[in-house]
Structures are given as C-alpha cells and as structure tokens.
C-alpha cells in the first residue's frame, strides 16, 4: 500500500507549526516537512482573555500558507489543533468559525488533558527508549506556554497527573511585566515556580521516588537536541550536567547565549524560564536523568492518526494508564477496592450480555469500567450528596488519555447512578455533549444502576453472575444459598431505567445448590 500523507497542525500559544508525515505500517511515521511560524497568540489570551484582530489575521495568513504546502504534497488528510491560547480565549467559537471561513481549515481546540495526552503519545511514539525509562520512577514534565503538566509513573504505568499554571509564556510575561533587572529574574521565577510546585510536591510526590524526568517542551528540548548539554546516545542527560547548563544560562548575557545556542534572542528568555522550571523540579524530586526526546504536539497528532487508521501498532497500553489513574483516584477518596471490583465485574458481564442490544464498542465498555471504579468517590465529601460530589471530583481530576467528552460521560454515569436521570434537554443545557454521547450516558447508567443494585448490600454476594439475553429478558443467573431479598428489592427499583432504555426486562434467577 502506498504511504499515506498526513499533515498535523499545531496552533500553539507562541508558535504555529505544521509537520507532514508519510505514514505506513512498514516504515512507521516519517517526517518529511516541518514548518514553524512565530505567533504569540498566548500573550493576548493570557493577558486580556481575547485574541486581537491582527493576530487572527496573522493566524489565518499562516494557515493559508500551511494549506499551500499541504497542497504541494497533495495532502488531503490533516488534523489541526489549537491549544491553551485558543482554549483560554473567551470567544473561542467565534474565532474557530472565522478561521474555518477564511482558510477552510477546521481548527479543533484541545482540552488540557487531550493536549497532554497527545504530547504523551508523542513521547510514547519513541518506543524502546520510552519503555526503558518508565521502568524506573518517572515524571513527564510537559511544559507549554500557559501551563505545565506533571505526570507521574509507577512501574511503567501513568498513575497521576496535574496541571500547574506555570507556562513559559505566562511566567515570562509576568516577570517582564515587573521590569526587574536580569539578575533578579531568576529569583523571581523561582518564587513563582516554587509556590505552586511546593503544593504539588506535598500532595503527590512525597512518597514517590522519581529517577527520570521526561521533558516535553518547545524550548529546552531544542537546545538539548543540538547537544549543548552533554547527553548519552539516547539524548539522556544527567541532572548534574543539566544544572550546569542552567547556571550557564544565568551567568551569560542574552546576546552571547543566542549566539551560543544558535537561537533567536527572544528564545533565550523562554529557554531560561523553561530550564528553571525543570531545575526546580529536579531539586524537589531528586531526579537524576533528564530525557528530552524533542517531540512535539504534531508527532502526537500524527501518532493518533496512525492509530486511528490502524497503520501503527500501539506501543504503549494507554488504557492501562487510565485505569490506574482511576483506581488511584478511588483510593485517594477512600473507595473500597473490593466493591469497585465487584461492581465492575458485574457491570461488564451485563454489558457483554447486552452487546447485541446496545451496540456499543470497547471504548464505551472501558468507560463503564471507569464509572464502576469511581461509582461512589463523592461519598468522601458528603454521604448524602454522593452523585453531585462524585461528578465534581471526576470533572476536576484529569486522567490523561480520556477526552473531555469521555470524562464527562463517566462523570454523568456516576452521578445518575445516585440521582434521578436527567433527559437530553437538561444535559445539553449544561454541557457540550451531543446526542450520541447522551445516549451512551443513558445506556451505561442503566447498566451501572442494576450492577449497583445487585451489590447493594456490599457483601459481594453476587460476584459471580452469568447473564444471558432471552427474547425480551435479560436473565441474570447466580448460584448461591444466601438470601438476596435486599438485593432483589433494590434491583427492582434500579431496573426501571434499564427497561426504559433497552425495552428489556432484567430478571434474577438464583440457583441454589452447590
């Protein structure tokens, strides 16, 4: 099969970039074009909340040029994503519409966790080195213009992730604003970084051992790629060498650095900010190795595309990461691991039995599993308002790998497991979800409800069930001698939605004996 050509466009907060790839299952992803254009959209959004007309003009000009380049390679498949600058603009929808009308390019806006997931994928696309690194305690530090994301690994699985508002552009604008002398810059930066990093450390890093840092950014990575910091073959530097590089940054003049690093002068400031963020993280985590693979969001976009076209085998099990994060969240809010497992296994059994009726796929099954794990996390906050509190916890806790919509689906399913189900009119007025997502919520809620009902006593009586579909009935067989009166009653209460959604009546059949 001929190679597919694919263009990935990143409308970033300080730069726009496009990469064009040849993608084939044989050769993988081969970058054949990479163009970048400086455009500090972020300074508009972060300062005034709006992107100015002239910047929109510039943005459209650049996109038109990008589309010329795409045309020159006869590229038809592309994906364009905007990141924090577009996300944090008040008039995102209007801007997107303008861009579409003026350039024909549809720029989708990534939520923070979606963006980080793509960055994460871009790192994971480096395969072998990545797998080797995450065998030890590792943190991915993804440094953007508006914020940074720190994700922690435990035994090759990503377990937790947090976003801190310490973006390079944001910090740089703030220190510039103070008009302080260069010598004071570093002190000021440290103060700003440490105030947020300190809290993060207390909450998340305390008990973890972090040996490796993986850096994803558009600043330090570039100079590290060019060998300014001594690195091993895989471009891994020791934190000692990195620290020396950072002190060199503060000792030398801007012009001299631009010359040495072979970058434009204004880049020097960004590099300095980014390097100091990394320095602070090294100091508070004790990491010894720094790996900057030099990947960009575009690589992640292409990786995602390749996955979607089944052109590439997934090198890393991202669902395992998400599952681990969910379990981690449940643990943090004192959820019972055992009960989560029971409900999850019942729910999945029902899901599988109902396959021909609901027509949902493996991803929805996975969402159901997450909802089962998180089914009552809110009770940590308030035992009578579990639904609402769970919803809020889920919506405010990032799980890298889940899209924003997916996260919302999980949150609603958990919410309606405890509260009366809300119909489309109500959901659509408070969220951006569309009809198909709404139907997924309805179906998963229906299943989760009866799964919860079956384990109402929390005694794990029905752990082993077998469900089969017989005409218009879902027959749930379980074998046991226990009294299931309590479960039956709650089951019947919870089954109403199920009947409504699927037009199928669930019945419990208990086989005594054995």
């Amino acid at each position, binding site marked *: 099969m001929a*190679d597919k*050509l694919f263009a990935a466009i990143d409308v970033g907060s300080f*730069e726009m970039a496009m990469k064009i790839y*040849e993608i084939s299952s044989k*050769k993988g992803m*081969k970058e*054949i*074009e*990479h*163009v*970048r*254009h*400086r455009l500090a959209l972020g300074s508009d959004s972060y300062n005034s909340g709006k992107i100015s007309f002239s910047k929109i003009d510039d943005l459209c000009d650049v996109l038109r*040029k990008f589309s*010329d380049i795409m*045309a*020159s*390679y*006869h590229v038809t498949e592309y994906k364009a994503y905007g990141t924090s600058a577009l996300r944090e603009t008040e008039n995102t929808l209007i801007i997107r519409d303008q861009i579409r009308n003026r350039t024909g390019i549809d720029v989708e806006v990534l939520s923070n966790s979606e963006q980080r997931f793509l960055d994460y994928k871009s790192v994971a696309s480096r395969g072998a080195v990545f797998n080797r690194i995450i065998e030890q305690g590792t943190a991915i530090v993804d440094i953007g213009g508006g914020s940074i994301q720190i994700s922690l690994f435990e035994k090759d699985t990503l377990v937790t992730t947090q976003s801190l508002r310490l973006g390079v552009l944001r910090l740089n604008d703030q220190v510039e604003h103070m008009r302080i002398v260069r010598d004071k810059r570093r002190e000021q930066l440290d103060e700003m970084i440490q105030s947020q990093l300190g809290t993060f450390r207390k909450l998340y890093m305390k008990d973890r051992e972090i040996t490796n840092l993986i850096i994803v950014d558009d600043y330090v990575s*570039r100079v590290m*790629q*060019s060998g300014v910091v001594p690195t091993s073959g895989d471009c891994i530097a020791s934190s000692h060498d990195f620290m020396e590089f950072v002190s060199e940054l503060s000792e030398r003049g801007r012009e001299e650095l631009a010359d040495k690093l*072979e970058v*434009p002068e204004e880049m020097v400031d960004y590099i300095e900010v980014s390097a100091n963020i990394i320095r602070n993280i090294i100091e508070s985590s004790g990491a010894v190795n720094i790996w900057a693979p*030099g990947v960009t969001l575009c690589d992640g976009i292409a990786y995602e595309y390749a996955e979607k076209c089944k052109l590439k085998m997934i090198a890393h099990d991202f669902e395992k990461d998400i599952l681990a994060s969910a379990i981690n969240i449940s643990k943090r809010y004192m959820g019972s691991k055992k009960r989560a497992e029971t409900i999850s296994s019942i729910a999945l059994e029902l899901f599988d039995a109902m396959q021909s009726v609901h027509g949902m796929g493996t991803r929805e099954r996975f969402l159901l599993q997450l909802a089962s794990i998180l089914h009552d996390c809110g009770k940590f906050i308030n035992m009578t308002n579990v639904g609402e509190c769970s919803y809020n916890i889920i919506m405010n806790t990032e799980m890298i790998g889940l899209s924003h919509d997916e996260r919302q689906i999980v949150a609603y399913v958990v919410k309606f497991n405890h509260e009366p189900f809300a119909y489309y009119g109500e959901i659509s007025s408070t969220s951006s979800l569309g009809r198909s997502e709404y139907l997924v919520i309805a179906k998963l809620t229906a299943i989760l409800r009866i799964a919860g009902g079956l384990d109402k006593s929390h005694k794990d009586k029905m752990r082993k069930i077998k469900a089969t579909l017989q005409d218009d009935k879902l027959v749930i067989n379980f074998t046991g001698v226990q009294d299931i009166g309590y479960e039956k009653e709650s089951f019947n209460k919870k089954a109403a939605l199920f009947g409504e959604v699927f037009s199928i009546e669930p019945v419990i059949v208990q086989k005594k004996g054995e």
Partner: protein
Amino acid sequence: MEKKNYKNSKYYYNRELSWLRFNARVLSEARDENIPFFERIKFLSITSSNLDEFFMVRIASLKDMVHAGYEKEDIAGLTPGEQLKKLYKEVHEFVELQYDTYENMVRPGFEKSKLKLIEHHEDLNESEAKYIDDYFMREVYPVLTPMAVDSSRPFPLIMNKSLNIGALLSKKDKKEEFATVQVPSVLPRFIRVEDEAKGEIKLILLEEVIERNISKLFLGYDILCSAPYRIMRNADLTIEEEEAEDLLKEIEKQIKKRQWGEAIRLEVQSDIDKKLQSRLKEELGLHSDDIYKISGPIDLTFLMKVYGLDGFDSLKKKNLAPQSVPELPEGCDIFESIRKKDILLHHPYQSFTPVVRFIEQAANDKNVLAIKQTLYRVSGNSPIVKALMKAAENGKQVSVLVELKARFDEENNIVWAKMLEKAGCHVIYGLVGLKTHSKITLVVRKEQDGIRRYVHLGTGNYNDATAKLYTDLGLFTASESVGEDATAVFNMLSGYSEPLGWNKLSVAPLWLKKKLLKLIRRETEWARNNRPAKIVAKMNSLCDPDVIAALYEASSAGVEINLLIRGICCLKVGIEGVSENIHVRSIVGDFLEHSRIFYFENDHSPEVFLASADWMPRNLERRVEIMFPVEDKDLKEKVMHILDVQFKDNTKAHLLQPDGEYIKAVPGKDDAKVCCQEIFGQEEAEKLGKKKGEGSRVFIPKTSID
C-alpha cells in the same frame, strides 16, 4: 605567548585599492602580446565597464560618506576621505595606462588588421564622408535633441553615463553660448563604412559623425569649438551599505544637504577647448580631481561590440565549446541518474543544458509535485523561466524567489517575475534587508517508495548565457539530508522560522560565517597539535576582517594556506609572524573565475565545500548564501583536482607579493606552459572520448599567436 592583534589595520589592504589592482590585472591581459588582438580589445573594454561600475557604486558610496561627515575608518584604517584621495591618484594613473594601452596596442593593432577605426572625421575620404553625412541626416538627426543654454534656458540635466557633445557657440556680437547634444544611446556607437576594393572595414564613432555635422544642429550660430564629454552621476539610490550599518541613518539625517545625482566624474578628450572644459566643470560643480582627460575615444566599452563583429575569427581565441556531461547523456532520465550518484558539473567546460533540462523534465513529469528555485540574474528569454512557467501550467506548485535587488538587473528581473506570476508561479520578491544570492533548486517528487527530493546547488547563477563565460560548479543530489535542508531553506525564504538544525548546508547570514570560522580554527588546532592542516580556498573576493584574522591566526599556527582570489583581497601575504604561510594568486583568463571552493585538510580527512558566497561581509552577513559539502569521494577528488590545476597555472596566474603588487607567473625554463582553463576544457572533451581537435562541436585551441 602574547596574543597578536590580527585585526590591526596595518595588516589589511583597502578594498577599493585592491579592486583597482584587479582591474589592472585585467588590463595586463589587454597588454599581453601573446594574446590575440581581439581578445585584448575585449579585455580593454572590460576594464572600462568595470571602472564605470566602480564609480557608480564604490566611489559614489565613498562620496556619500564624505558628504555625510562619516569618519569611520575602514579595515585598513582609512577614512572615506583618505580613501578617496588615494583612489583619485590611482584611478587617474589607471586611466592613463588604459589609454596608453589603447594608443600603443590597440591603434597599431587596427593598423595591422583589415579593420580600421577612424577616430577623426577629418580622415574620411570624399565618398565616405558623403555616405556618413547621408547616414547622419537619415538616422541620427531625427533623434537628436540639441540644447542651448542662455539666460532663459538653464543648464540641462545631462544623463548619467551618457556621452554628449558640448559646444561653444556665438551669434554675431552676442555673448558666447554653451550648447550640448546627447549622443543617442539608441543608435550603434560606430558606423561601418566598407571599402570593398581593399577588402577593409572601416568604423567611425557616432560622436565623430555628429561633431562633423554639428553646425546643422545650431543653424545661425558659429561653432567656436566642440568636443565629446561623458559624465557619471551619483544617481543610483542604492547605497552600498558595506562598511557601515549606521550609514543609512546618517545619510537620512544629511539628506537635505546632499544632492542626489551630483556628478562624480567627467571624461573629456585631452584636446578639449579650455573654455569649454571650465564651463562644464563649473556647471556640473566638479573638482579638478573628478575630471579625466582622455587621449582616445571616450568610453571604451564599444570595443566589446567591435569584438562581436563577424569575420575576424583569426584574431580571436577559440575555446572549446561546452561539453556534454557523461553522467547525463541526452535523453536520459535525469532523476534516475541523480538517484544513482551525485553529479558535479563544471561550467563552462561542461554544458549548462542539463540544469535547464532538469527543470524542463521536472515541469513535464507527472510525479513531480513542486519546484522551488532562487533566481538572481537570469538571461533574457531564459529557458529556465520558460520551464518554470510550463511547470506551473502543468499544475506543479512552483515557488520562485526572484531577487530584485540584483544590481543593475532590477528592471530585467521585474519583467520576467511578472511573467512567472501570471503563469501561476508563487513569486517571492526577495527578502527585506537581505539579498538572496544563493543558487538552489528543489524538485519534490512523489515516487513508489514515498516523497523524494532532488536538489541542484551551484556557485553561479541560473543563467544559461553567463554559464558559457563564468567558471562555476554545480551539484545534483538526491541525498535525503540535503533535501531536508533545501526544504528548510525555502521555508525560511517563505517567512517561516529557521529550522531546528541543519544537516549539511550552511546558510548565511545566520550560520555560514560561524561555520567558516569554525573550520578555519579547526585547522589552527590541528596545526598546533602538529597534525596535518591546510586550507585551500578559491573565491572572487576576500575582505571579511573576521575571516582574515582567523586565517592570520591559522597561518601563525603553521597552517599552510593557499588562496585563489580573482578580485579584491584585503589580506596581506608575507607579514612576519602573521601571514608567512599564506599564498594568494589570482587567475584572470578568458572565462571569469567565479566558483567558490573551500578545502580543509582536517588531519587527513579532508572536507570540501562549494558555496555561492565570497568571504566578504556582504556575503556572509547581509545575504542569503549557501555553502554545501561535496561528500562523494570521486566528486571530491574532481574538485580537489580543479584546485590543484589552478595552482599549477603559469600563464594566467598573478601572484600577490608582500608589497601588495601582483606579478604574473611565468613558466620556468624547463616547465611546460600550464593554462588551467584550457586544461579543464580538454579534460572534459577527453572524457567524452574525443581527442584534441576531434568532433564537429570541438574547436581547436591555439596556445600561441601566429
């Protein structure tokens, strides 16, 4: 050891004076009796057009500086005023030598040949005079605009570079008046008068024809005296920003004081009437230094047209016609050939046609997606421009960077740039503040196994006409890493950010100079560690102070440095402890030496580069230029061979002496004559299996004059 200050101005020559030395070397070709007569008049003509350009650009620029009160010293420690003072003296001497050459070499040459030049209309015989007078009334008179000056008519604007005839008139008892008429540039400078009986061709200069008939222009006046004159103006608004970035600002400040278009040179014949001369001097506001008394025809560039006359082949040197390229035979698939191996072209010994064919083939190849090219100076009616237009019509994406700032070619460039745009090409009209001097073409092709890029890089312009006269090198490659770099170059030229790194190319103004200095310093380090170190470099001009200082340092560390610098060289050889290991030679031959080749010994693993750039600040800092490596082993050897033969040349080489003079190399008693340009021609012919003088396309080179 005390560190020497290699930037000390006493280690440098002034670039203008060095340029005059170059023009003197060209003049020495005109004076060389071993060279056929017509070749010599060609060289003489070249010195004349060279000098015109020198005035318009360099002298004008220095005058600007003086007017602006700009006192910054140049590399050799001279202020603009001091430079001008020295230049006046030397230019006057040079012009004297030019006309000495004319008188003692050209005139006798015409005497001996069947071509006669009538310098004075009085020498015409009766029938010739009649013919000429008829010609005057028929062709010349209608296009003349005689202008008289009196109280109601001010002194007219005399056009830059134009040849004119000035006259003093009188009318009865009135005060004498000044009148002038321009010798029309639309008419040929000389008129042919044939004497069939003697088999001779006679030429008479147009100004003589007009002077002879001048009374017809000013009826009712007595002509007291008349004489041709020519002026050169500082009319060119393009300021050479060479030495001083702050100069422009300075000039802006001074602009009111300054007179654009002031006259900077007046050429008059030496026998001009004194009154007429002082009238001109006064009206044009000139100093005595600006007046050049000419003993012969003014403006010798007409000799190039004389050279072009048919029927005098016996007085010209015959060079081999450009040979076809064995790796790229006619009708071959150029892409396939390039895929096999990198290909090096040596112009003008090898034909430029493959480069044109490369673009033509790309234009018509259905798998080609895009063609990108930089164009600096293009010939009129260029086949390359045509091919690019064709490509756009065939739906290829064609991007062309047209450098409008190419000196003296601006108008020409605008015309065909518009043609390209009409045909659907994407045209970029240069970059703000930078001249794009690099010569690069990129063809993107979709092939079975994916996108592949083909690149042509050159040291000379994409100009099929000059490719027959300039020595240049070009490289075809399908190397992936060069292809990536080429894409990055064009992206940069389209306004995108610089790439994160380069694989093979070094690009000015951001990276090239640093790379050069690094390469030179690497040799210095090798020498200090007693490892083999050597630099051989060929270029048009060398005047970048940083590079020269680095070369001095290398020389003092013991690096052997051999330079082939055709034109300006601000470096001094033979300074004790500074440049004893540096040798400079200049080759001025039939073809203009134009290729830039840099060789670095690098401790037995030599690296060879070609480039579009000279080692001048303007190339390294204010232009987009590309230096590229030659990595293929065979091609590297070919390039090294070129350098080698040039250093063996003992007929066209001039060697720079410690006192700043150049002396011509002469073969030793037992040495064979070596003329590198002839050897290269023969070698290319031999490659095609042709022996000397065989084959219809091959001319026979003569090594000496009969």
